[in-house]
């Protein structure tokens, strides 16, 4: 797990959570997903990526919004709109702990 040091120019309005994103193993997909998170108004604090037995990747990202409250469900839909993103969903702390 990597702890990221991010620009703190903008403060969070308090919307935060962990997303589980399933990605196909296709060049560019990871950066496309992470870029979408930033461009849609979030900062990511933790990023954890593991390959599954079927070859896809599980990407766990802990994020918080910057510059105004945002809707995490909308972000999930925006991520799912990307080609080679199989799914994106919010996961609860317990679920995340189980996975860890």
């Amino acid at each position: 797990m990597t702890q990221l040091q991010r620009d703190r120019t903008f403060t969070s309005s308090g919307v935060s959570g962990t997303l589980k994103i399933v990605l196909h193993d296709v060049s560019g997909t990871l950066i496309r997903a992470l870029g979408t998170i930033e461009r849609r108004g979030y900062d990511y604090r933790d990023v954890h990526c593991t390959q599954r037995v079927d070859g896809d990747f599980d990407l766990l990202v802990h994020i918080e919004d910057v510059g105004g409250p945002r809707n995490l469900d909308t972000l999930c839909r925006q991520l799912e709109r990307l080609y080679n993103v199989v799914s994106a969903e919010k996961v609860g702390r317990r679920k995340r702990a189980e996975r860890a």
Partner: protein
Amino acid sequence: MNQPLSTITELESIHTDREPKSGAQLLLESIEAQGVDTVFGYPGGAIMPVYDVLPRTGLRHILCRHEQGCGMAAIGYARATGRTGTAFATSGPGATNFVTAIADAFLDSVPVVFVTGQVPTDLMGTDAFQEVDIFGITLPIVKHSYIARDPADLPGMVEEAYFIAAEGRPGPVLIDLPKDVANAVTTDRHKWRPYPKIKPATVRSSHISGAESMIRAARKPLFYIGGGIGQGDGVQEFRDLVERTGIPVVSTLKGLGSLPNDHPHYLGMLGMHGLKAANYAVQECDLLIVAGARFDDRATGKLDTFAPDARVIHVDVDRAEINKLRKADLYLDGSLKKNLAALTPGRADCGDWRELCHARRTQYEWDYQSAQDAVAPGIYAPKLLYDLSRKVPESAIITCDVGQHQMWVAQHCYFDDPRDHITSGGLGTMGFGLPAALGAKIGASHRTVITVSGDGSFMMNIQELATLFRYDVPVKIVLLDNSALGMVRQWQEVFFDKNFSEVNLDDNPDFARVAQAFQIEGFSIRTRDEVEAGIDRLLAAEGPILMHVKIDPNENVWPLVPPGRSNADMMER
């Protein structure tokens, strides 16, 4: 998928033939197999292998004079025809000149496949001559993108690129093609599975019945429609729904033409430069049925004051737009066309509301004569546009640039099909109008194509006059010249205490003579009594023609909702 395909046999042969072919050959054959017949492009070093093969294909190549012109012509072509546009450029500056066009296509959901040359694979990442990471640069503004690393991938990649560009909510797709991949010869054809993510559009019957209940319960229902009606091929279904329900309609800039301007239930464009009848209706409605629109800030004004008493039904093909800015009480995702056709709530019980809306529409109807009498004695642009659009053939297409003239076109020109109006709505790209008109006319050669521009915008892609001449494309240009960056000047006048800063363009060239220098007919009009003859001359011309219209720099666009304010706070002259 709206791209007409060549025969299945041709498509299959692309994937199954084992002739040794270069990447460039495979690219162009695969593009042709998608039914593409026209490409807008500009050659250069890294894409030379493609241009080496191009003359041996059946593709018609339109050589524009700037890559931005190529990209915007491809957008105009796509928007006029409903087919996917195609544009080529080389690496480095050729590719970066595409960026504005790609962003424009992204924000207005236009299907275009952009192909860029790239430096050879072994030089990528070395800061080679004309190397730029166009894949990385365009990540935020493409629907999807590829770097081709193996020529054997190209048939599948191209097929998927055209599919993705056109399916669902359309958008731009980029293929970046390194020179060595374009040159490499292969007998292989890698299999690409059809993309598994695309699901057949479904209509949720429970949501339909819920929406029908909400419509039946409403006393002040209102349709708020956008570009998704036309792009989702739902115009007829929407018109049928309006007839079935009798519900009044307001439209965004991109939705214009989805209902004819003179339809009895149509109240006009809403938003920053919307009509009063439309904005008042939004503020007072109790049910907002949003179809193919996305609560853009230019349409909504201050969002939390927008339709404050309304419940919301949101109909959109893109699930990511639902609840993005305004929470929907109920949504219908999937095919907009099918959802609109499935809605059968019966006649809405809103007679008083309908009458109020109609009365307001009459009350706030434009009075061109009074408005013209109230302004300076020169040519009054809104009336000129009104007169023009009523003289043009019914099937005419009007493109425009960005600024005051863009809003005047939206307010005063007549549209009865969304494909008749091609404007840069999302990105607001100055310089869009001329190349978009070029592409529209090439794609829809049987239709009259007019572009309305301003003196600021026109200079941004003026080089495409040479393309009009080269291919003898009879686009009709109306250039409204107020010797200023008019919309910026208006905002400085209204919101910046008349502190006019860098908006004066009174050293413009003689535009009629500029057109003549490009071997295009050009003339100027300066007085009201020249307008009628000027329009007649414009419309009668057989070749490309430019009518330069001198207008008053002090004329502004009204009404105007100040930024950050409610749509109820419309300013007037």
